[in-house]
């Protein structure tokens, strides 16, 4: 069952390459939250219940509802145009993300470690690099945040792989998740709209040498 969820997770990554609307991105991020909820539930059922509840709450409440809602709110409030505006054509994005997935797959195939749940590793790496790819290939800063959230989801999958033995790490990961995303989004909500004109919200590129 976990395998199916993780495969669906990977498909959602491919979809990120195809999608060109911010709304679809938000939907994907929210959807990934649901999948992670499922994965966490199946994988971590053995750890102590308090921890489990915390993790489940984080995935379902935070990743699936709060953050996507927040993102929507920011887009509305700052009147950000709804297109992702990639530097590269979307077609190339799909190709690159496919290559990323294949690459992570091949990489993990070279590891001979019986303890490793390979599929977690593949999915996590794919999410990680897809997130990075989205950050470098999209023009808007809100899409950078979304790329970061995808990376976070990848990290979550990775922490699942070690979660049974070291639940503390999963918790720290969650801490990171909440901390970083609340902070990133918080600046967006409160400050960017006040200080900058609408047009500037989309690109911050004045500081350079």
């Amino acid at each position, binding site marked *: *069952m976990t*395998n*199916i969820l993780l*495969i*669906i997770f*990977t*498909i959602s990554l*491919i*979809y990120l*390459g*195809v999608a*060109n609307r911010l709304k679809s991105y938000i939907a994907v991020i929210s959807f990934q939250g649901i999948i992670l909820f499922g994965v966490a539930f199946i994988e971590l059922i053995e750890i102590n219940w308090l921890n489990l509840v915390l993790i489940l709450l984080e995935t379902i409440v935070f990743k699936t509802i709060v953050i996507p809602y927040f993102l929507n709110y920011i887009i509305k409030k700052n009147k950000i145009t709804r297109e992702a505006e990639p530097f590269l*054509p*979307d*077609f190339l*994005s*799909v*190709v690159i*993300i*496919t290559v990323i*997935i*294949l690459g992570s*797959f091949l990489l993990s*195939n070279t590891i001979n470690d019986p303890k490793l749940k*390979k*599929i977690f590793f593949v999915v996590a790496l794919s999410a990680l690099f897809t997130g990075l790819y989205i950050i470098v290939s999209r023009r808007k800063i809100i899409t950078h945040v979304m790329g970061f959230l995808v990376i976070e989801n990848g990290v979550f999958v990775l922490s699942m792989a070690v979660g049974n033995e070291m639940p503390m790490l999963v918790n720290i990961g969650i801490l990171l998740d909440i901390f970083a995303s609340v902070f990133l989004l918080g600046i967006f909500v409160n400050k960017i709209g006040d200080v900058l004109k609408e047009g500037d919200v989309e690109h911050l590129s004045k500081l350079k040498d």
Partner: protein
Amino acid sequence: MLSLLLIIIASLFFTGIIIRTKSILSGRKGPGIFQPLKDIWRLFKKGAVYSNTSSFVFQIAPSIYFASILMAILMIPLGGHQGIISFKGDFIFFAYVLALGKFFMIVSALDTGSSFSGMGASREALYSLLAEPAFFILMSSFALLTGYTSFHEIFSTLHFGTYISYAIGALAAFVLVIIALIENSRMPIDDPKTHLELTMVHEVMILDNSGFDLGLILYGTNLKFAMYGGLIANFFLTPSYEWYFSIPIFIGVQLLFAVIVGILESFMARFRMNHNPQYIFMLTSISLLIFLGVLLVLGKIA
């Protein structure tokens, strides 16, 4: 034999159901289910008009197109019953027979010398080109999974045991549905209803065809749809089913397929033309995932 019959029967009402679904969903009464068929029949009774600038290619292309589809249908099995033609590697033949038909359509479009037809031909060629790898990777994954290379053997030995293989099956069905939509020039890739040459893909290619030829092409499209429906239905049929199970399942899947297409076409707008390539390429990516999934099932990778 059974599958050929069933597919032909399905082709009679397939487009009608799509149109009917769309009418109902937009709150209209809509034409009868057999209206598309009646239109085709009307076209069959007419003579064709050929432009002076076109050559014999333009005249034979519709027939070849139609024949290629019929040929392809012969290979479709039905659960335990194999198609009329069945041999090792027939899915490759299947793909190329269809490609042959399409090739002739493209050439005949170029033959007319109209700037619209050329535009449509280039679009259609691009989309087929992008959709092909998806089909091949998908079928090869199943060949790998089952160890056989013909439609009949693949589908009759395909057993879904573990969860992951169910996921693979579902994904494969999804990919096939989308391929069917692309090959039949339906939404969201192409809009079969449009009257604007600039936005057409398939329609603009056959803009110069008329009468009997046009009827052949239109009916060929209906057959093609039913053919893909049949292919998808095979995912849900196992050889152990008796004919009185498999026929209702077949018809049910065809119906469902048509209704899904109708729903899809009602509730979304078509893609911008330059978004089509990546959308189609996504199928290849998903097929690759299926391939990886198969490797996982086979234990080739842990």
